[in-house]
């Protein structure tokens, strides 16, 4: 096997996309042809492939996180429009006036809870990608964290769009044609953007990085919540977050509905939703500190690690 064939095989083994792999091999082929016999000065093809893969995995993961955020922003526009335009479309139809409650309740989950998951995980993915934009090679664990956050955010985005479609289907006979057309168009545009971002993310995830190091957690992303009493006991963050969301939702709903009972109901549901989301997704998206077992690491920050 020639040096170039070895390089091509090593790049493939690390999941470097065929187009990138072929261009790298083509470029190195030109180098070798410039001075026949210089292969030995190019170094070990395996080490070179690892370097290419590590840097490409880093850059594609960051890019996919930002694409995911943009696609989610479009989804947020669709969702916000559905709420802002509803008064002009005749107001909320009332949940018993639709085709079926079997459509209404899944729609409610999609419209109320999925956007919150998308907002938190999508923002955390984009925040990490932006904070670490100058680092050429991120640890494989950190790349995994960014892509996991982006993946969960995009799936929640799809959940939001599905919720909108179910909502429109359930009340199709109650809403005017212009509202159905507007929301249908916006939600299809959001779905296309989400699918495009998801495709980019899947491609980024095929590239295998071997760079060592820790993934870090939410305390690295948001220094304001980096207090030790929160970091050392992850459930405290979940509890504090759920209480803040619950109290906030109670206050907003009480003011909007002019009813404390209505406000408390909404606040309880939002707070419980936050606690369930934290429990189910906390570890995957880095809300739990994974360094509490080591007191020295527990007090360090990800930025203390050497870059790449």
């Amino acid at each position, binding site marked *: 096997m020639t040096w170039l064939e070895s390089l091509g095989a090593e790049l493939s083994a690390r999941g470097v996309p065929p187009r990138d792999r072929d*261009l790298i091999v083509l*470029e190195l*082929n030109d180098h070798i042809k410039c001075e026949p016999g210089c292969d030995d000065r190019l170094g070990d*093809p395996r080490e*070179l492939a690892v*370097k*290419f893969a590590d*840097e490409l995995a880093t*850059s594609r993961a960051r890019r996919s996180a930002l694409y995911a955020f943009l696609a989610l922003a479009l989804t947020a526009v669709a969702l916000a429009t559905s709420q802002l335009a509803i008064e002009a479309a005749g107001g909320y139809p009332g949940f018993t006036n639709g085709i079926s409650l079997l459509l209404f309740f899944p729609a409610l989950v999609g419209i109320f809870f999925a956007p919150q998951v998308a907002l938190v995980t999508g923002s955390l993915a984009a925040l990490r990608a932006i904070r670490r934009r100058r680092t050429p090679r991120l640890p494989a664990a950190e790349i995994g964290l960014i892509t996991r956050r982006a993946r969960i955010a995009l799936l929640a985005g799809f959940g939001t769009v599905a919720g909108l479609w179910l909502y429109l289907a359930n009340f199709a006979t109650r809403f005017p044609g212009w509202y159905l057309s507007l929301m249908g168009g916006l939600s299809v545009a959001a779905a296309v953007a989400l699918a495009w971002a998801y495709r980019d993310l899947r491609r980024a995830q095929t590239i295998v990085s071997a760079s060592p190091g820790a993934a870090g957690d939410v305390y690295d992303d948001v220094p304001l919540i980096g207090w030790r009493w929160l970091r050392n006991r992850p459930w405290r963050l979940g509890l504090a977050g759920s209480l803040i969301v619950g109290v906030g939702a109670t206050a907003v709903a009480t003011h909007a509905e002019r009813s404390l009972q209505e406000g408390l109901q909404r606040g309880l549901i939002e707070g419980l939703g936050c606690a369930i989301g934290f429990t189910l997704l906390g570890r995957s998206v880095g809300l739990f500190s994974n360094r509490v077992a080591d007191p020295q690491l527990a007090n360090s920050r990800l930025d203390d690690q050497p870059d790449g």
Partner: protein
Amino acid sequence: MPNDALGGQLDPLILATIAEEPAHGYAMLQRLKQRSGGTFDLAEGTVYPALHRLERDGLLTSSWSTESGRRRRIYRITKAGHSALETRRTEWRIFANAMEAVFG
């Protein structure tokens, strides 16, 4: 010279070499070696990931041409690359002057 010994100066060295004239990878390495009087005789393969990274960061741009029947990738410095190079040059001069002053 191992690339590690450059202590993070590989990127500005590549930018400075390509700022002089657009070049493909091999020509850039030869120019770098020549201008440094043979001191910067780098591990050649590892320069390519750096070239690709600088292109992704928008500091270099590249185009393909055909030379003697084979495809060749030519790198050019961008406006952002010139600006980054100027910044690194200034930082280096401050550092070098300080070192010189201390060494005497």
